[in-house]
């Protein structure tokens, strides 16, 4: 199978949908000739024209609302929010409008909208361009939240998101954009709400999201090599809906759980996952307390060394697992 980048996989998913469904279009800031801040839409203007690859003014409140209005009346818009931090300026349309319209209107309307947005730190963009705010979205009934970690998952999940009749927030970690992987050329869909076991193991379960999936896999490799610890790595891939069953099944097998995400630990999705396990039958199988690794409670700093310290790194995961197995 051919290899393409995470970014190319996203572009391919959008382009394939736009070739087959005239209701699908994309809008956002600088997505035309410029190709988007990260180049995700490069070349799409040339193929689809300015009507369907719609460059907008810097007006997050208007473009997010217009996306809701277009979705409400029969289009299937993809909105690119240039950095996920800017979701703050589109918040009313996501939280009070898109998420609630179906319920408020008694099930007589739907908002098939995808908001794609780059998130995460590690690129030197500092406090207002590096956050991981996905837990906010998880908290709002009516939204679905997707957070892929590989090019293969990104393409299949984006197709599923575009085909979904609900508002979906699709997070793209900026450090993953250049990451390569095997991706089939033909369109395919990965159902929302199905986790992927990225590595099988029986000593400890790590549930990790986005870039942390890769750090967990690297840690797992090292732990097996140096300590003989066999780590199971689970990527939920979608936070809403969340595949609780796969996580619970794994913890019952390993008896140990580490949850790792980049978002600030306090109020993060890790607390939710830990609670789900604690409330489940897997609780009786736990041989040790659940461990959560997440971002420090600070804004993302600019200096590269401080920036690294703000979020979990491979060595943090290795250390956490060793401590959990009393091998530190």
């Amino acid at each position, binding site marked *: 199978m051919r290899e393409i980048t995470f970014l190319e996989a996203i572009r391919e998913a959008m382009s394939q949908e736009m070739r087959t469904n005239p*209701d699908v279009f994309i809008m956002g800031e600088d997505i035309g000739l410029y190709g988007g801040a990260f180049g995700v839409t490069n070349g799409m203007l040339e193929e689809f024209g300015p009507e369907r690859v719609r460059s907008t003014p810097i007006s997050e409140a*208007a473009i997010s*609302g*217009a996306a809701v209005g*277009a979705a409400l009346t029969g*289009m299937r818009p993809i909105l690119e929010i240039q950095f996920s931090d800017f979701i703050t300026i589109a918040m009313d349309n996501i939280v009070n*409008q898109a998420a609630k319209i179906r319920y408020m209107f*008694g099930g*007589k309307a739907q908002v098939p909208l995808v908001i794609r947005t780059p998130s995460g730190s590690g690129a030197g963009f500092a406090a207002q361009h590096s956050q991981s705010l996905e837990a906010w979205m998880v908290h709002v009934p009516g939204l679905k939240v997707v957070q892929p970690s590989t090019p293969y998952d990104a393409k299949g999940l984006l197709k599923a998101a575009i085909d979904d009749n*609900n508002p979906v927030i699709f997070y793209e970690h900026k450090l993953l954009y250049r990451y390569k992987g095997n991706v089939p050329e033909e369109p395919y869909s990965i159902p929302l709400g199905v986790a992927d076991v990225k590595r099988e193991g029986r000593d400890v379960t790590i549930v990790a999201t986005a870039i942390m999936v890769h750090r967990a896999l690297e840690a797992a490799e090292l732990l097996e090599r140096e300590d003989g610890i066999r780590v199971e790595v689970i990527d939920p891939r979608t936070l809403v809906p969340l595949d609780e069953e796969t996580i619970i099944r794994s913890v019952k097998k390993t008896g140990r759980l580490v949850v790792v995400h980049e978002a600030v630990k306090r109020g993060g999705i890790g607390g939710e996952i830990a609670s789900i396990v604690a409330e489940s039958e897997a609780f009786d199988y736990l041989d040790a307390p659940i461990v959560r690794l997440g971002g420090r409670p600070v804004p993302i700093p600019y200096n590269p060394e401080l920036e690294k310290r703000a979020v979990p790194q491979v060595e943090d995961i290795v250390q956490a697992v060793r401590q959990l197995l009393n091998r530190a």
Partner: protein
Amino acid sequence: MIEKLRKYGVDAEKLVEIFRQCWLIRNFEETVEELFQKGKIYGTMHLCVGQELTAAGACSLLKPEDKIISTHRGHGHCIAKGGDINLMMAELLGRVTGYCKGKGGSMHIADMDKGNLGANGIVAAGIPIAVGAALTSKMKELGYVVLCFFGDGATNEGAFHEGLNLASIWKLPVVFFCENNLYAMSGPIKEMINIDQISKRAAAYGIPGVTIDGNDVYQVIPATAEAIERARRGEGPTLIEAVTYRWKGHSRSDARKYRTREEEMEWKTNKDPIARLKGELLKHGILTEAQADEIQSETKRAVEEAVAFAENSPFPSPDSLEQDVYA
């Protein structure tokens, strides 16, 4: 004067229909207030008594496929766009037969089949949504126009400014219809903006802006009709500022300390849109006094029937709580 409306497709028959709609709205609102006072309506409501003509007049110019976006003060808009008052009243009484199965209430009534894309509890939030609905019309070449209602308070929200700009640069078929009832909750608009007319803000977005007397059918019809036609021709949006007045408070608990009783009396006695329209209809021999009275009582009876329908409707079942969160 009345002949001048004919070129906008508004003849004697249509004027009577507008008059009837105004009465239906007023009777609906007066009844809602009574029911609220009797404790039969829960939560809150925002009544549009005194500003019926903006809704009835503007919506009378729309085709069935055209769309509207409404506000928290949205009962009049829903009725004027052909809404079913039985379903509205059932919604206000929290019944499963209501527009939103009892889950939306006063601020979230929508009628997708009739082109009412919904009331909205967030001030100005409907403006960008209207822009998006107009974008659909343009992209799918559906030919419909979106009439977007909002109040004076909304014009100080960012969504208003961003939305007007976006609709203007994309030349979208939308009419921005500001019902300036002089007060944003308690905030007098003259203290909240530093210009004398909201419509002047249109200049900033390169679109026409006009201020009209929203209680005068001779001003509401031409201004709205021209804006709709401009939108339909693909020339883009217009901002209409229709000056009007809400007779009641902002919502259920409003002591109206921010305005005088004299001011209210002036609007009720000399600027009542229904009385003014009735005067014109009588003067031109379109209706007799008796016919006008019959319209008033016939619409009152229709509202009473709506109350009966609502009161005889079941409440939603407890297990409907988690239904319709996702499609």
